[in-house]
Every structure is written in structure tokens, then in C-alpha cells.
């Protein structure tokens, strides 16, 4: 028995150093927590915790700074890319990431993300797409699926009135400025592994001084979708991923001479 215990003390899995030991406030089954952890692991593996600054959004992840052991700024709703631009331009030695929901990035903050990406600002954006406004209680987002019932689309999203959901990776990858843009998901273990690789690459690009990088992560909101956590992961698979295809949309290109 004592032999078994001795073997079991070999640590194969532990809390990332960049992660604090605070208990997160997210609802059961919400994948914000998984995405946080992947970001913390990437920071640890690249050894950049001491020079990393996160920019928190307004949304369910507004308190993200309580869960990381890095410096953090709390930004106004949607403006994280502008804060990141300001800080990175005056302190290029810092590694800066924004963590933003779909309401934050694709609605109120659309202008800031498009222009930061187009200027090729050398920071990293983690874009969490859960097809709804979580924090304010489940209203329609620019990413809400056609027909999806939300607090402000009680008859289902009507694309005649509200337009089709905005696909940020496709939109941003139309820009010419070199960038790394990938869409991933975290509803299955394989997808989590792929998401981790993408997030780490996005930070690596910044360490290498390469380019603006954005990783869109399809995420769940069981609470506002009105589904159990298991049903919610299924919903990502059946409803979201056909419309939001996973994959790399843009890779860093050699700097183009003009």
C-alpha cells in the first residue's frame, strides 16, 4: 500500500504556475474555465509569465484577472484591442493578450479589433464565441445562430432583421496585414488539444515578434442556452461548428514589400 502511495506522488498534472488558486465564478459546464487553463499552460510553457499582461473584457470573463498570476488591465466593453495597442506600442517587451467574448469583440468592439488586426499590432487575442451575451443574461449576440432563441430574440434570431451571424475569422482573414488566425473548439478532448496548440502558437508568434494573432474558440453557455453541460457540448458540435468551421484561416506571411 505504501509503495503505491510512493508511486502516486510522481506529479504528472498540476495547476499551471500562471494560474491562481482562486475558485472561478463560471457556471457549471461553461468552457471559459478550460480556455483560461489553456492560456495559462501556454504562458507557462513559453516561460513568459513575468512579462505578460492580460487585458480583461467586459463579459462573463470580466474577473479573469482573479484567476491569473500575471499583471492585468480591466478595459471598457470592447476596447481591449485599443488598450493592448497602447500598452504594446509603448512597452514592446511585454507579452500582451486580450481575452474577449463575442459581444465584446464582434459587437461593441468590432472597430477596435478590425483596426488593431489591420495595423498588425503584435499582441494575441483569445476570442471566446459562445453565440450569446452571457453576463447580461442571454441576449442576442452578433454570433447568435439563425433561429436561436435568446432573451432578445424570443422568436429565434431572424436573419432578415438581425443579419447572419458574423464570422470573425473569415472577416479578419480578408485583411492583408500578416496575421495568424485560427478557429478552434473545446467541446471534446481532441479539440482541446488542438486549441492548446493554436493558443500556444499565437503566443509564440508574439514572443518571436511576428504578428497579430487571434484564436477564436467555440465555447458553451449552458446557462443561457438552457441546456445541460453535456447537451451544450453537443450543441457546439451540431449547431455551431457547421457554420463556424474550425481550422487555420491565416498564417504569418513573409513581410510583403510594397
Amino acid at each position, binding site marked *: 500500500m505504501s509503495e503505491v502511495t510512493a508511486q502516486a506522488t510522481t506529479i504528472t498534472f498540476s495547476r499551471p504556475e500562471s494560474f491562481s488558486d482562486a475558485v472561478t465564478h463560471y457556471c457549471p459546464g461553461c468552457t471559459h474555465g478550460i480556455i483560461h487553463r489553456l492560456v495559462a499552460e501556454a504562458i507557462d510553457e513559453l516561460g513568459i509569465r513575468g512579462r505578460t*499582461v492580460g487585458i*480583461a473584457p467586459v463579459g462573463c470573463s470580466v474577473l479573469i484577472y482573479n484567476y491569473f498570476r500575471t499583471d492585468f488591465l480591466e478595459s471598457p466593453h470592447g476596447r481591449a484591442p485599443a488598450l493592448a495597442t497602447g500598452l504594446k506600442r509603448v512597452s514592446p517587451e511585454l507579452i500582451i493578450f486580450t481575452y474577449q467574448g463575442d459581444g465584446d469583440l464582434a459587437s461593441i468592439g468590432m472597430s477596435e479589433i478590425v483596426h488593431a488586426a489591420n495595423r498588425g499590432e503584435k499582441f494575441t487575442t483569445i476570442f471566446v464565441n459562445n453565440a450569446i451575451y452571457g453576463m447580461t443574461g442571454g441576449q442576442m449576440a452578433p454570433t447568435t445562430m439563425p433561429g436561436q432563441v435568446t432573451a432578445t430574440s424570443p422568436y429565434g434570431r431572424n436573419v432578415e432583421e438581425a443579419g447572419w451571424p458574423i464570422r470573425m475569422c473569415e472577416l479578419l482573414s480578408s485583411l492583408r496585414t500578416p496575421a495568424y488566425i485560427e478557429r478552434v473548439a473545446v467541446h471534446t478532448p481532441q479539440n482541446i488539444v488542438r486549441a492548446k496548440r493554436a493558443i500556444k502558437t499565437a503566443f509564440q508568434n508574439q514572443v518571436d515578434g511576428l504578428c497579430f494573432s487571434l484564436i477564436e474558440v467555440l465555447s458553451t453557455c449552458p446557462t443561457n442556452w438552457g441546456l445541460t453541460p453535456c447537451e451544450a457540448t453537443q450543441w457546439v458540435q451540431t449547431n455551431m461548428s457547421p457554420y463556424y468551421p474550425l481550422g487555420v484561416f491565416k498564417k504569418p506571411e513573409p513581410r510583403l514589400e510594397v
Partner: protein
Amino acid sequence: MARILMKGNEAIGEAAIRAGGIYYFAYPITPQSEVGEYLSRRLPEVGGVFVQAESEVAVGNMLFGAAASGKRVFTSSSSPGISLMQEAISYMAGAQLPVVLINIMRGGPGLGGILPAQSDYFQSTRGGGHGDYRVLVLAPATVQEAVDLTMLAFHLAEKYRNPVLIAGDGMIGQMMEPVEFPDQFEEPPLPPKDWATVGARDRAPLITKSLFLDPVALEKNSIILHEKYLKMKADEIRFEPYKVSPKNRAIIVSYGTMARICQTVIDELEANGTSIGLLRPISLFPFPERAIHDAAVAPNIELVLTVEMSMGQMVEDVEKAVLGKKPVHFYGRTGGIVPSPEEVRDCLLKLLDGGKAK
């Protein structure tokens, strides 16, 4: 350093650099675009940064991010642009970040016009954005003073960890005057920047925020801010008296380039035997209430005349200062019309003698 002839907007840009303000974020707007044009040439020479943002909303928030670094960051804009920055100004005030904002005011409301005005007084001195906060507001009357106050603004912003606004009217930006730059910007020592977000290397992580979900914590933050504003009221009141004497029959209160027009009026009336004094607030917040009160209650003073390039905004602060002890009148033009010395003189004489010059 020699005196050189410079346009106000360019002199402000140069003054910022001399004060170490080499991180500049802006979006073009008349009548201050020359600040950005000048700096886009100068900043690369001094290892600075100029980002032309996509909007003033972005500018305000770029300043927010950059200010958190502890470096000297600033912008310049004009009225509609400053309106768009109010979001970030509220957040920066809440998070106690230093930043310098230069507003070369034009006529409003709305798109208004592009000529000089002083109609952003309420917005400047009352907070402008949401929440219980104030910004320090300095109003230059000459290009030289614009230079001096811009440099001072960087110091005060850091001293108080608060946004500081230069409220210049469009004339200040566009006029050319001789200016002198000090060889070195002398400033008293400032406390260490232990609040700067530079990475958590060998200390606990730092969170720069204005979010306090616990109402007790939020109220506490507002009280801390309020105490700071009280300290500004005690230590940062600036004003200039002009020909204030016991012989004065009236006191004019006016600021910025409008005050210079009032000086012309005062000189002219003095030559004709009518003694008028001028009190020119240099800090609009904190407002020189005591000085105005004391000048107004002098025995010979018949009235106080507030002259502004607006429909009457500072006049409310003047009334508050005078406490009803003397009549307070207002004269102003707006929309880009600058009152002429004759207009101001006629208004004053009418008030004093029913139109008869003495």
C-alpha cells in the same frame, strides 16, 4: 533657448516632447490637426511613438493601455473628439492613471463648426464621462502659456495619477507667437511608479481596474478619488489678476484668449479713467473661487462681468464664488464668433453707467 515664432498647435507638440511626453495617440480634427502633423515628424527623431488611431474612442483607450505602463502618454483633439474619449477618461480616472489630454475647443454642440469656442467648459470641469470623478483643467491664454501648462500637465498628471486636460480655445491652436522652451524641464520629484503595469516578474500581480463589484469597495474608491480632488482644490488653484486694485469699479472674469481681449478693453477704459480689474482663471478645475470672491466683495466693486466664448457656462462657477454679494453678469458669443473689444466695452459701460462713458 532663443525665442522662436511658432504656431500654438506646434508649440504644444514640442512642449510635450520637452516634458518627456513622447507617446502620442490621436485622430485628426480641426482646429488642432497640426499637433499630430508636427509630432508625426518629430516623435521618430526622439524615439517616441505616434499611433494614428481609427477613432477617438480608440485613442482614449490606447491612452488607457499606454498610461498603465507608467510612461508619459497624451493626445490632442477638439470638442467632438474629446466627447468620444469621455468613456476612457472615466475609466482612467477610476483606475487612477495619469494622462494628458489637449482640447483645442471649437464651437458645438454636435458637429458645430471649426472656429474657436469655449463651450466645452461644463464637459471639461464636471467630469464629462460617467461617475464621481474630476479632471484637472488648465486653460492657457498665450502660446507661451500653452507651452508652460502642457509641460506642467505631465507633472500634475503623475503627481495625482489623474487625467489632466488642457482647455485651449481654437485661437490658441491657430495663432503664431514667439515662444521660449526651457532647456530642461525642471520638476519636483515624483513618487515611485509602483502602480505601473510592467509584468509581474518578481512581485505579486498588479490589477489596474475601475471595477469594484462590492459596493463598499466601490464607494471606498470614490472616496479616495474625492480626497484627491480636495487636495487639488487645496494645492492646484491657478489664476492671474490683471489691474485688480481698490479703484476697480468692476471685475471681469474671463479665461483663455478671451481674457486677452478683455485686457485690451481694460487698458482702453483705464486710459479714459474707468478702472476695471480682470481675474483670469488658469485652472478651471480647481476653480479660483476664493480669489474671485475676494476681488468681487471689495467696496468699490459694482458688478462682476463674466465673458466667455460660450452661451454662459463658467458664469455659474463665478456666481457660486460671488455668493450673491455682488451682481454677476454675463457676456458671450459662440459658434466660432469671438467677441470684439468694442462689444465687451459697450456691454460693460452699459451695465455700469447705463451706456454713458465716464
